[in-house]
């Protein structure tokens, strides 16, 4: 059983050697970003699209940096609040980045950055029909997961906690339930991860990969933190495959009591 589960992560027919997806925002400098990506040994980084003037050309330089790193890009629709915004942004991203992969975000409000799941499902259906490979940033709800899969998604990316909060896994029960109900669907925890232990916990629960950004970008030493996350994700995956023991409420002696001295 362990061997059957210990397969490389495959998303939309692409096999990935790393289970860490890394965001590219908020780093102190492009050089620090590049060091973090190399240190994480990740194969997928998230990118975005923003307005740019014809004279500044910051986007041009950034795109050159990413291409030089030799990683696969997962463009996002961050900041989009409507289906139309998200669909148009995805169409623009496909042309600029040359990939049908899209991290689909349709955001309900700026305080929680919670997915607006009705719009998310509608946008996922439209984009899937247009040939996009949609990675939806969603909540951990089972019914929403069903709708997204029916809309054409082959991967789900439930949040651990609100984006940038670093809280870890807010609803472990629901995440366990999601994992149990969709055993064959690649599930990537996206957002809210603050510490390597959070990532290890998610992997121990059987999630397939972790997407994070702020916890690395805002660390005092981003490259070292990226390495720590990579190690934690490997450890968590290894633990999941090793089939962890069940927790129990009462103590259970691990040392045999048979043959103890002083017993009649």
């Amino acid at each position: 059983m362990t061997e059957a589960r210990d397969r490389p992560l495959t998303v939309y027919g692409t096999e990935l050697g790393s289970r860490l997806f890394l965001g590219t925002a908020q780093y102190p400098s492009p050089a620090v970003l590049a060091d973090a990506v190399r240190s994480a040994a990740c194969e997928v980084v998230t990118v975005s699209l923003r307005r740019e003037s014809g004279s500044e050309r910051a986007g041009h330089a950034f795109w050159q940096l990413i291409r030089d790193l030799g990683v696969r890009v997962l463009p996002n629709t961050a900041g989009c609040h409507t289906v139309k915004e998200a669909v148009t942004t995805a169409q623009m991203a496909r042309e600029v980045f040359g990939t049908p992969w899209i991290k689909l975000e349709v955001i309900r409000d700026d305080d929680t950055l919670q997915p607006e799941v009705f719009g998310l499902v509608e946008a996922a259906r439209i984009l899937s029909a247009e040939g996009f490979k949609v990675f939806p940033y969603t909540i951990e709800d089972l019914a929403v997961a069903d709708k997204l899969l029916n809309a054409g998604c082959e991967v789900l990316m439930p949040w651990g906690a609100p984006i940038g909060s670093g809280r870890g896994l807010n609803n472990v029960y629901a995440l366990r339930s999601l994992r149990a109900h969709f055993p064959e669907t690649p599930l990537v925890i996206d957002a809210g991860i603050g510490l390597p232990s959070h990532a290890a916990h998610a992997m121990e629960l059987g999630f397939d990969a972790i997407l994070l950004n702020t916890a690395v970008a805002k660390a005092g030493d981003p490259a070292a933190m990226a390495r720590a996350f990579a190690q934690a994700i490997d450890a968590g995956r290894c633990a999941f495959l090793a089939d962890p023991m069940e927790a129990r409420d009462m103590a259970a002696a691990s040392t045999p009591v048979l043959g103890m001295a002083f017993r009649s």
Partner: protein
Amino acid sequence: MKLKINGDMHEVASNTLSELLLELGYGDIVVATAVNQAFVPATARHNVTLAPGDSVEVLAPMQGG
């Protein structure tokens, strides 16, 4: 004519989207475009005639999470 380009009003001389990109200095960099919130592929830019008040978005790769 006046166009809303990336959120700000500009007076421009161009009549088509492809001419506008050259006028604004985007000639040789990778960007994606939309007019009035509808995506315009690069291959179609020369066919898109702009009208006063149109909203044009010109987006480029950027850091993202």
